[in-house]
């Protein structure tokens, strides 16, 4: 006999059952784990790369890239809300009655069935005992009702009714919080999207060209979006990231960034981010001026504006380019702006130069770790005062991508200022193939004038095949005593030098190494390598002589510094073979423009959630710390029966019962 009525009834039973509630809470907890393990709201390309096309699609269908807004997750939440509501609905009448009632209708038989009961015999008048007992119970915080019964009377007492109130508060609070959260969710947009009124924009186009179907109007009741504003610019929209695209949210005002500041601690870590902003209404009238900082948002027109991030806002860069394919050519000027692209033509093909970022300073750890000091503190793990002596600002750097015509790009990060490493000065340029790698740094030595000119000149001479015979013969003459000039030995030396120079010019140390491996028996390789290296270094020194002469400069000094310059140059030239760029860009000057990342939110549900939270806290503490108890004292001439009950039988309850028993015995005596 399954009538609709009884089906409804069993659904009601199920939804309000404690076991169902426990299952829901557990399922919700487990479902929540997913979104913490799988990074949410990444660009879809990342997921595709991570999972492959099949699983990518499967996970997308399950909504795993935005679990907490997936339909099935919302359904679990909905079940929780329904379950709690039904539960309140079911318990409300009973609990409310119970809060008011003294349960004065207990019969002698039901009292006798209580687990916590105690009988006492007494001799004096029942009224007197009842008076004393009532006085005692009231002293203990009970409210007492006194009823006459056939052969005596009944005291019905209760305390801690607010425990039940706690139940209502806490559980309706959960419903309230979920409603508040829903108000701030994107349900309206979801519905509009489903009905085809709105569509996610996935193209990378200027904001002004985004069509109305992907725009939200300023009266949208709730949103949370972000925008980057360069100094001196303004914005009247924010961007909402949704799935694999975005939406444009039009704002009811325009916000302009005057200045963005970063304060630093002495150790170089950032201490504060601040934006000086001005707010204009749509007629262009300035209505507000304020400074926004982390933890100090601005609230304007019901919209809260937060300091969320920062970036470069289009710093202008003044650059000297070195052509690495035509090393004898003089450097050329390049002008660039961060976030913009420049075309570049080189003998090796056409490139697009994409300026990615600029950093006005870089704090690097320039020293070795301190050896643990041998003092008392080291037993305790050392002083808690951080030793930051090695942290140093090594000056500005900028980042760019060099993209060839096939679309392949390498990313470079160049420091503007030279760095001192092992006591000598270099220019550093980092390179990487993908954003996930860290930069590998190539260092180019500076000459005593602090310039790259010598290195570039030397590199030109070394890689120039026309100069090779002259270098080789200078090398031979310098190495041999005058008496051996013109001998076979000189010819052999010349030949060796030419060969080493040609190999090196072909592929640096790698080419030399490969040659040795192919041509020299294993036993003699070390020796051969040492000899070749010696020949190469001495020849390079001669090449420097020739390069200086051709540039009409005085010959290089034969000192340690030149020796190191030669060695460093060789290393650097060799590294340049794997550098993968036809140019090296040296930053000369910059004009910094910063951008502030602001987040703007309108969340009407917030006050609902906060109110719910307050109720939840109160409710939880009422339920835990207001103990609901009831006491009955049935008094008949010569005989009294004490019974006690509570919705929670803890040890405290047992203790209190023992105390009441003791009190009754005392009164009865």
């Amino acid at each position, binding site marked *: 006999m399954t009538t609709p009525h009884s089906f409804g009834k069993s659904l009601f039973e199920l939804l309000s059952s*404690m*076991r169902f*509630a*426990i299952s829901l*809470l*557990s399922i919700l*907890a487990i479902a*929540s*784990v997913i*979104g*913490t393990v799988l*990074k949410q709201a990444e660009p879809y390309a990342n997921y595709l790369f991570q999972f492959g096309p099949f699983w990518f699609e499967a996970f997308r269908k399950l909504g795993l890239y935005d679990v*907490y807004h997936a339909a099935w997750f919302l359904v679990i939440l909905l079940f929780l809300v329904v379950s709690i509501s039904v539960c309140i609905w079911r318990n409300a009448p009973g609990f409310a009655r119970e809060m008011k009632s003294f349960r004065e209708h207990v019969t002698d038989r039901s009292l006798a069935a209580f687990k916590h009961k105690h009988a006492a015999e007494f001799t004096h008048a029942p009224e007197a005992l009842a008076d*004393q007992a009532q006085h*005692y119970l*009231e*002293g*203990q915080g009970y409210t007492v009702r006194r009823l006459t019964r056939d052969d005596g009377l009944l005291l019905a007492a209760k305390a801690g009714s607010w425990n039940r109130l706690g139940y209502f508060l806490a559980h309706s609070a959960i419903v309230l919080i979920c409603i508040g*959260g829903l108000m*701030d969710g994107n349900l309206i947009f979801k519905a509009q999207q489903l009905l085809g009124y709105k569509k996610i924009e996935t193209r990378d186009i200027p904001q002004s060209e985004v069509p109305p179907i992907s725009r939200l109007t300023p009266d949208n009741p709730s949103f*949370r979006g972000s925008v980057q504003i360069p100094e001196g610019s303004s914005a009247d929209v924010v961007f909402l990231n949704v799935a694999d695209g975005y939406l444009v949210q039009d704002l009811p005002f325009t916000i302009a960034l005057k200045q963005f500041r970063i304060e630093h*601690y*002495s*150790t170089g*870590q*950032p*201490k*504060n*981010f601040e934006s000086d902003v001005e707010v204009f209404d749509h007629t262009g009238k300035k209505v507000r001026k304020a400074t926004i*900082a*982390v*933890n100090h*948002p601005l609230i304007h027109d019901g919209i*809260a504006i*937060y300091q*969320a991030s920062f970036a470069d806002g289009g710093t202008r860069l003044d650059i000297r380019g070195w052509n690495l394919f035509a090393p004898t050519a003089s450097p050329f000027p390049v002008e660039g702006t961060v976030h913009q692209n420049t075309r570049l033509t080189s003998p090796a093909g056409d490139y697009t130069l994409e300026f990615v970022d600029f950093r006005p300073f870089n704090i690097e750890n320039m020293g070795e770790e301190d050896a643990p000091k041998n*003092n*008392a*503190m080291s037993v*305790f*793990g*050392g*002083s*808690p*005062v*951080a030793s930051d002596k090695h942290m140093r600002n090594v000056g500005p750097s900028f980042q760019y991508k060099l993209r060839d015509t096939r679309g392949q790009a390498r990313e470079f990060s160049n420091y503007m200022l030279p760095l001192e490493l092992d006591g000598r000065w270099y220019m550093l340029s980092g390179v990487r193939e993908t954003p996930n790698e860290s930069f590998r740094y190539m260092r180019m030595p500076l000459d005593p004038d602090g310039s790259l000119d010598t290195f570039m000149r030397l590199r030109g001479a070394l890689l120039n095949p026309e100069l090779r015979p002259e270098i080789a013969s200078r090398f031979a003459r310098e190495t041999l005593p005058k008496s051996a000039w013109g001998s076979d030995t000189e010819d052999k030396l010349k030949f060796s030098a030419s060969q080493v120079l040609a190999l090196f010019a072909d592929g640096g140390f790698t080419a030399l190494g490969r040659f040795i491996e192919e041509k020299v028996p294993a036993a003699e390789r070390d020796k051969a390598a040492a000899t070749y290296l010696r020949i190469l270094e001495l020849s390079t020194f001669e090449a420097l002589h020739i390069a200086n002469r051709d540039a009409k400069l005085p010959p290089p000094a034969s000192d340690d510094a030149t020796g190191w310059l030669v060695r460093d140059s060789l290393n650097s030239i060799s590294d340049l073979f794997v550098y993968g760029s036809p140019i090296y860009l040296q930053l000369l000057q910059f004009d910094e423009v910063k951008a502030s990342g602001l*987040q*703007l*939110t309108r*969340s009407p549900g*917030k006050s609902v*959630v906060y109110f719910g*939270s307050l109720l*939840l*806290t109160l409710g*939880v503490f009422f339920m*835990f710390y207001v103990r609901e108890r009831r006491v009955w004292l049935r008094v008949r001439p010569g005989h009294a029966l004490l019974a006690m009950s509570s919705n929670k039988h803890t040890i405290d309850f047992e203790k209190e019962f023992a*105390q009441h028993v003791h*009190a009754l015995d*005392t009164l009865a005596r």
Partner: protein
Amino acid sequence: MELVLNPPAPLLKRLSWFDWLFAVIAAAGGLYALAHYNEYMDVYEKGILLATIPALAIFGWYWKPFRTLFIVVGAVSLFALGQYDGNLARMEEAFFLKYLISSQAAIMWMCALFGLATLTYWGGMLGRSGFALKTATGLTWSAVALGWVGLMVRWYESYLIGPDVGHIPVSNLYEVFVLFCLITAMMYLYYEARYQTRQLGALVLVVISAAVGFILWYTFDRGAHEIQPLVPALKSWWMKLHVPANFIGYGSFSLSAMLGAGYLLARRGILASRLPSLDIIDDMMYKAIAIGFGFFTIATILGAMWAAEAWGGYWSWDPKETWALIVWLNYAAWLHIRLVKGLRGPMLAWWAVIGLFVTTFAFLGVNMFLSGLHSYGSL
């Protein structure tokens, strides 16, 4: 016998001269701090400091041993501050600072004492020695006192490093682990006195020792004890409320897990004759989870309010937030299981033990394995 019948006197009438002395000392300490350090506090922080005074007083009236602890910690900390005399280098020169009560020394002594207390509790329980158990309680109290001294002095040291670097020492994993040990130990000490049983210390101190092990590894291997300036997102008065509330939650959940373990052992007859009865363990477990749940609820709400101010939304489903929710749901489920007749007993104990893993993941695992807005606490 009249006593039984008289209604309990109102709280204020039950207070002894020591209670009042303690309240006066707490107020004097708070007002002294307000007078001397107000330039480092904003209006909310001053409010928190002022509200702390009555909170401390009432807490001390309610839990009497806290009064002594507070006074001892306060006196020793002030002594340490005096030894510094505004000069950090004194850490390596002044005898007391160098060997005892500079923050790092005190915290390492805390670690050592917790280790000793654990061994002593075990010895006392296995050997049924009341004296050893009493000693273990004493050791735990000393560890707690030194730990608090360490944190207090560390607070001061951070300002000596630089007025802009100074901050309350609850800002990174190292500091909150110390806090965790202290809170867990204090909660245990409270129940130990209340239930008149010392045997459970052996179990509870195991989880504290594990935390101590982590602190030692973190110090010696990673140098994590170094005081670092706060990242901008943490520079907020909310931190003073959110973090301690959270750690009351974590501490009591860990406590309940160890009680759960005790319950399961005793039920299988292991150590049964040495542990308190199942009912007592069950009751303690419930009390611990109730306190934990209450404070964890508050902590999560405070966290949401802080997030609303710092990140622009009260709930972002950031991994740390989400794990806080998972922990919270887990214990909500626990509380409801307790209300179902057939499910109590070992099921609850198991659930509490498993809860420890959930909790540990929430406050350690998330920082180690997952990234998100809370990533300042990473290992």
